[in-house]
């Protein structure tokens, strides 16, 4: 054989960039280019399997539209700039505003797509360098209500159980989660469990794929969740099916709950929720009679003005039946983004440092000041993502730094968001493509993709897992952690780490739930599940073991049903609910550049029940206008039995035909999460 230079082929194990399942696969890299993906067969979640997004998770990495160098806007146009120029301008603007208008005139968005190390650093940048708690990220938009609701009831705002336990559940209550599309490798486990004999109760206004496997599919009116959950508890208590021992030994506040749910008879609930009374009662019995019942929920529970109430009601139901603290039970909020759990854990939130240590706690403040060698860290809760547009319009926030988020597509009422972002004096966006939000920026910084850097993500079951560098950074891009270090240093605070390993060490030092972890331990197996307080701790597959809640006793919160902020009326007679499609990811930055995914769903659409299509004379496949009090969009009509009569559904991925032109930015008063899941719309343009 003729001797020639061999190709270099390597396989690099990493964690999927898409949902919170945290599957791991190998990038196959040939001569510096990714040419394929193979799922890990030993990994506890992937087990040799992936969803369609996972199988196609590398195509965008080498896309020529990747940002390759910093951009500075001059006279409304982006000009190529050096890193030095860009960093200098950012430092001048941010320190200038902070000096002139106070620390809280600058704000930062972390990113649930970035690593734990990167989110830790951006929160350190906000808190240690700029002395502001104006640091938040998109968890505000998805599970802020979970973090608040479960912390109040159980003492820990995370998924209680593990993905591995799903196939052994006897009864699932899935609500507000299109699991097969949004957490496919969890959805598949539910389907497999049903095939083995488990009972599935699905409460969802849409007949999603799981409806085909559900013994009870109960399509509720959007926003009626507290009512039907109280209704189930009413039946359980009335028929004596509650777990009296568990309630007595491990909980508090039961009597008040009992009193509150008394009026929520199935018949009363039917009037609010539209769920047939007898079916709800049957489902309640099935849930209560099994000793391995698991509640699985997602945005359908959290994205409401009563999001925290909804979460507390789910927690009530699980405690009432003693279905918590054991394998294959629990309250399982499925976290959406690959690292939204981690971004919360490391403190990219307005009210907590890493490990959920409160900024209002003087001891925590002192601990972090000492660790970071600074004084004067703020003890005032910062501005949430959803409050930033208003504060920008009021002139309170002058400069905003966005790392890897795209609020111009993802946030509610984007017409208002756009006004807010334009009212800023200075906007920095750090991303890998020129997103809709980046187009509004004054400076754009090019980060690397997940294939070009090291770090960790924390999946929905609290598993901290490695991502690994497979290829060199493309163009003149830098890993996000490096950029944050450069920005901090340019702003006068020397931030310098040889690699993400050392950043993680600092995080573990400061966050008790991560304390026993380090990169060497994460390397041994496929990561560790927090809490992992010591170096010899094996990690925690399920929380609150034997009813010993993180906060001591679990607390029942008696919650009354409240109407959504905006309901269908004579002028806007239809209820809009929004969500995702299987084939796209959030604002489509990555999936629009992935051919097989983009081909599946190339444009926005509105799902309309055939009865409504007939009533409003809408033909399948035509372009129609949909309007709310906040805007009008044009989308393609998809006439289908999926949504219930009177409810329409639009995916939020598309900048063209953006569902979030219509959605309501009314917030949950505690969690500040917007009500994406309910607003009133009509067909046709607005007056």
């Amino acid at each position: 054989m003729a001797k020639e230079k061999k190709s270099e082929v390597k396989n690099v194990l990493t964690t999927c960039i898409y949902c919170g399942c945290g599957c791991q696969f190998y990038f196959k890299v040939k001569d510096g280019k990714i040419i394929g993906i193979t799922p890990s067969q030993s990994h506890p979640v992937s087990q040799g399997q992936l969803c369609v997004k996972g199988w196609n998770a590398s195509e965008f990495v080498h896309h020529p539209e990747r940002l390759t160098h910093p951009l500075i806007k001059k006279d409304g146009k982006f000009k190529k700039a050096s890193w030095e120029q860009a960093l200098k301008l950012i430092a001048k603007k941010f320190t200038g505003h902070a000096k002139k208008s106070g620390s809280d005139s600058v704000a930062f968005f972390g990113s649930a797509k970035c690593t734990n190390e990167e989110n830790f650093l951006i929160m350190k940048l906000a808190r240690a360098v700029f002395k502001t708690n104006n640091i938040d990220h998109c968890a505000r938009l998805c599970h802020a209500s979970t973090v608040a609701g479960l912390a109040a009831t159980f003492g820990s705002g995370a998924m209680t159980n593990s993905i591995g336990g799903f196939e052994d559940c006897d009864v699932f209550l899935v609500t507000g989660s299109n699991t097969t599309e949004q957490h496919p490798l969890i959805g598949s486990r539910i389907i497999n469990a049903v095939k083995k004999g488990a009972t599935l109760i699905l409460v969802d206004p849409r007949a999603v794929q799981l409806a085909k496997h559900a013994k009870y599919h109960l399509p509720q009116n959007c926003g009626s969740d507290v009512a039907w959950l109280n209704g189930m508890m009413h039946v359980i208590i009335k028929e004596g099916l509650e777990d009296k021992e568990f309630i007595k030994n491990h909980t508090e506040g039961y009597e008040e709950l009992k009193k509150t749910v008394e009026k929520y008879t199935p018949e009363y609930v039917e009037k609010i929720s539209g769920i047939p009374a007898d079916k709800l009662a049957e489902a309640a019995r099935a849930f209560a009679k099994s000793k391995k019942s698991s509640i699985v929920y997602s945005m359908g529970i959290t994205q409401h003005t009563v999001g925290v109430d909804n979460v507390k009601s789910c927690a009530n139901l699980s405690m009432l039946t003693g279905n918590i603290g054991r394998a294959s039970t629990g309250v399982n909020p499925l976290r959406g983004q690959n690292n939204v759990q981690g971004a919360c854990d490391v403190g990219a939130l307005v009210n907590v440092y890493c490990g959920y240590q409160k900024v209002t706690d003087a001891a925590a403040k002192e601990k972090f000041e000492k660790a970071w060698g600074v004084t004067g860290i703020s003890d005032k809760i910062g501005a949430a993502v959803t409050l930033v547009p208003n504060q920008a319009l009021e002139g309170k926030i002058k400069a905003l730094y966005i790392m890897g988020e795209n609020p111009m597509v993802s946030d509610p009422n984007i017409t208002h968001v756009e006004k807010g972002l334009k009212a800023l004096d200075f906007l920095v966006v750090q991303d890998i493509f020129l997103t809709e939000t980046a187009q509004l920026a004054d400076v754009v910084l090019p980060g690397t993709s997940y294939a070009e850097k090291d770090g960790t993500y924390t999946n929905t079951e609290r598993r901290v897992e490695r991502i690994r560098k497979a290829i060199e950074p493309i163009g003149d891009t830098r890993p996000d952690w490096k950029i944050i270090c450069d920005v901090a240093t340019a702003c006068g605070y020397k931030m310098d780490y040889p690699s993400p390993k050392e950043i993680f060490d600092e995080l573990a030092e400061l966050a008790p739930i991560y304390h026993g972890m380090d990169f060497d331990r994460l390397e041994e197996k496929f990561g560790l599940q927090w809490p992992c307080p010591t170096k010899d701790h094996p990690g925690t597959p399920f929380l609150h073991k034997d009813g010993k809640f993180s906060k001591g006793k679990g607390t029942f919160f008696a919650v009354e049903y409240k109407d959504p902020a905006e309901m269908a009326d004579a002028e806007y007679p239809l209820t809009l609910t929004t969500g995702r499609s299987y084939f796209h990811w959030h604002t489509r930055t990555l999936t629009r550049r992935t051919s097989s995914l983009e081909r599946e769903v190339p444009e926005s659409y509105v799902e309309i029940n055939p009865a409504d299509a007939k009533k409003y004379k809408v033909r399948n496949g035509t372009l129609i206008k949909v309007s709310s009090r906040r805007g009008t969009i044009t989308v393609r009509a998809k006439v289908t039995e999926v949504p219930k009569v009177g409810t329409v559904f639009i995916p939020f991925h598309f900048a063209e035909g953006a569902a979030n032109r219509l959605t309501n930015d009314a917030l949950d008063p505690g969690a500040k999460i917007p009500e994406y899941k309910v607003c009133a719309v009509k067909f046709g343009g607005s007056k």
Partner: protein
Amino acid sequence: MKNLKVKTQNLVKLLDALKDASNLLAPQTDKYGDTYFQQVVDASQVVLKHFKPLMPAVREVLFGQLEDMITFKDTASGTKIKPVKAAKDTILFGLPNCDLDGILYNDEFFAKREFADFYYVNARKKLTIITLACLTPPNENCFCASMGHGPFAEKGFDLQLTDMGDGFFLVNIGSKKGQKIVDDNSSLFEAAGEADLSKWKELKQQAEESTTKKDVNKKKALDNMGRTPLKEQMIIEISDRCISCGACNYTCPTCTCFNVIDHKKDKAGTRKRVLDSCILGGYFRMAGGHNPKEAKEDRTRNRYFCKLLWDKEKLGDSGCVGCGRCLDACPVKVDIKDVIKQLSN
């Protein structure tokens, strides 16, 4: 077929020599416990026990998931096109026969019909194949013998090795390329005797029995396919479970569909091909939006028609080699055997 044998330690020496001469890919287990084809750096790390990788061997070098085809640039004097660099010499070591037969099927499809696929043919010419016969099924989903594809190879390999269990591997030489490897390293091999050969036949027969599923009758199933309608209930049940991940296509050694896409910015870019999946609706949708296979059950049915009827009409044999990978990689455990079993009655 001339037969030789090689001591285990000499086989490692052979791999060591081969890795220096060519790009050698062989199954190795990494520190996380996963085994797959990797470039060989240290020959002692190569797994010498029969093994079925999750991704079929054809994806390693011949027809991958994501391949560059050409780069292009629009200039004043027209579009300038540059093809990607030619494939390099590669040896695949340790593949099971289902993978070899998958490659032979791809040869028929890409190389031996009216239009030969430039990229495939180039890479194929440079490929040497050393198979390792499966003595027992690598996992419970294997049913290659029922489909007439092994587990021992009859043709198409350059070398075939069989672990005789006594510190020796029996070596079948299947081609000139294989003969040349033996000639270049002749000191490592020794002659196989009559006793070796009869023991080998015994192992072969045992292996065939262990990879046969009694309720799968290939001939009957293929004869019935297209004549007897597939049980409607079964197809609906499968498509209700299917979560459209595409893995049954991506991991199938005989799926040959790809899409051609341009990654372009301004006036320059790269034309690539992407492994495609007929489980996805967009695969069938036409310009203008009409989709003849809008319903998932139609696409499910289509896949079985493709594997069990049209492949045979097109290329003479069913595309299903009985490797069981579509089940290995399926999150909801859809089993093509269920369909074949129904058709076997």
